[in-house]
């Protein structure tokens, strides 16, 4: 079972390292990790995709919460949050195949970021599932290189509580 964890960190040296080190030490698997700035210059947000059962998820959240630089930890629950990812995909595109690829990219709202004699670079932003689908469909054409940012997410605008605060005082 995979979960997305969103955490706010103090923007301090080593803050990310402490999280990653804790994951490594406790044997937790990270599928993807994205870190970047937030509306506050002194706070960063890290979005982690982890593969675990429910039991370790609670452990992961609690262990993260103990780190001094970690301000808040919450799971982004599917349905209550939006998740997006960006991918760049370099696909083999000899002239006779381009039309098909471009039609495909149109369906997925992927942009052509660069054009070369034998390849195209698509840029696609969307839900991770959309990117999975697009990747699947262009794969038969020959994917030369591919990079994904890892997912980022926020709770929905309709969720007035914002990120659900987990107090970790088990009740």
């Amino acid at each position, binding site marked *: 079972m995979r979960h997305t964890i969103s955490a706010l*960190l*103090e923007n301090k*040296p*080593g803050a990310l*390292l*402490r999280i990653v*080190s*804790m994951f490594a*030490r406790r044997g937790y698997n990270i599928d993807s990790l994205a870190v970047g700035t937030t509306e506050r210059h002194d706070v960063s947000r890290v979005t982690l995709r982890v593969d675990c059962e429910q*039991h370790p998820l*609670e*452990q992961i959240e*609690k*262990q993260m*919460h*103990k*780190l*001094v*630089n*970690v*301000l808040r930890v919450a799971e982004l629950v599917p349905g209550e949050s939006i998740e997006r990812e960006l991918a760049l995909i370099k696909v083999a595109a000899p002239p006779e195949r381009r039309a098909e690829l471009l039609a495909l990219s149109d369906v997925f709202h992927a942009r052509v970021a660069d054009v070369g004699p034998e390849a195209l670079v698509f840029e696609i932003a969307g839900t991770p599932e959309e990117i999975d689908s697009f990747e699947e469909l262009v794969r038969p054409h020959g994917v030369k290189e591919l990079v994904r940012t890892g997912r980022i997410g926020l709770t929905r605008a309709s969720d007035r509580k914002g990120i659900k605060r987990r107090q*970790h*005082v*088990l*009740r």
Partner: protein
Amino acid sequence: MSRMNGADAVLRSLEAEGVEVVFGIPGGAILPLYDAFARGTTVRHVLARHEQGAGHMAEGYARASGRVGVAVATSGPGATNLVTPIADAWMDSTPLVCITGQVRSQLIGTDAFQECDIVGVTIPIVKHSWLVQDVRDIPHVLKAAFHVARTGRCGPVLVDIPRDVQEAELDFAYPAEPDLPGWRPPRRAHPRQLAAAAEAIAAAERPVLYVGGGVLNANASAQLLELAETARAPVVTTLMAKGAFPETHELFFGWPGMHGPKWSNWAMNKCDLLVAAGARFDDRVTGKLSAFAQGATVIHLDIDSAEIGKLRAADIPVVGPLDEVLGGIAAELAKRGSAPRTDAWLAQLADWREEFPLRYDQTGDLLKPQTVLETLRDMTAGRDDIVWTTGVGQHQMWAMQYLVCEHPRTFITSGGLGTMGYGLPAAIGAKAARPDATVVCVDGDGCFQMTCQELATATLEDLPIVVCLINNGYLGMVQQWQNLFFDDRLSHVQLTHQVPDYAALAEAYGAAGFTVSSEEELEPALAEALSLGRTAVVDCRVDPREQCFPMIPAGAAALDLIEYSGDAAASAAGRGAEGKGVAR
């Protein structure tokens, strides 16, 4: 606010924290701080002979006093020598602030002389750490360091200060509060959980209070006693918690785990309600986890919510400071006023204790290690000015089994990390914390040789301790495992009784040395050592074949323990003798 350099600011910060003593060794990158010591401070500096010793002294100080221990070392090898004490403090939740020098800021990252990324090295074993890059941060960092070390679940922190930062100047003002927006340890327990716990305890017929080191860190012994007496619930204390509950109390039922008595483990495994208080279901306590305390309802009380459900699911979790939690549950129980239903259970436990006493082979000419511990116990009975420390191994387990501790913070040992060599420097630190006390380090010959250079610290810094050396000439616990689990194939475990000559070594360091090889010599030597008022080493040359029983083999269920069984145990101990002798 006054103008000073970073090194002076470190000392003014330590003074503001009320630090009495630090343990350390100078070196290049920490020279400015030592110059500040030379210029004057109220903080006593104890010069160790190895940074590992300094770290363990700081731990012993912290354990004996309940205050934060402070160790100081230089960059590079000085700092890496602190890694073992830091890891030890991490595993045993000992509050520790380690201050290390670092190479000059502009040299960081260049592989400079004595450069080591000690912040990076220690990340997995500290609660938090700081590399101070701006001299103006020193007061804030130290305020935060002490706060983090002693709040929530106690543990070690590290402050790494480059030499140029120690030399730079700042306007010093010590902050009243730490600036730690991400550090919010639980401050109070949830009343509903306290009530639920009280209700379960009141309803239980076979409850056990499984008490861990967290109770000592929370200074919650009084509340523990109150709860145990109100509930009439038996108490077992882990190795780390020995002394948290008076061991002559009628409700005290020993120590659980690998070398705990059968009756203690039976209490833990046949209860209907297990109340874990500041304990973490360590594998050395539970044995095979899936077979541990099967069917028991679990109440887990801890300051660290991450411990709850980590290894054993808790039916009633309570997160909060243990003094408040234990006191709160006791108050809830008292409010209910229902009569405890534990009489039959207590009688059963007492019967088991009668039926399965600790036993050992008392025949033969050789001095038995258990006899040494029993003698020490009898000689110190009723004294409340004794603090024990131990190393790690057989002698440690015998110390747990045979010594009697009536007061908290009087049994100081390395539990989680199992650090051989811990006992002697920890004793020195404990003596610094309790100058009134007689501090006795029960050590093994293997352990002693790992840190015995600190005898110089004990004699020269006027921190006298008594070392009672359980010298069996072997790495005894390893030998025991090789006997029991590796078909008696002894591999590189013999140290010999005679080399070094421990009494002569003690004298070389300016301490008193005694050699004891018979029961007749034992008590007079110990009596003299205990009364000298100076550092003494009593080398007790004991039977190398003696093994520590009972024993739950690693990974086995706690009820499948190996007991001392007369000849069977003797044959198990008989290396190379007929019979592969796993005395099951």
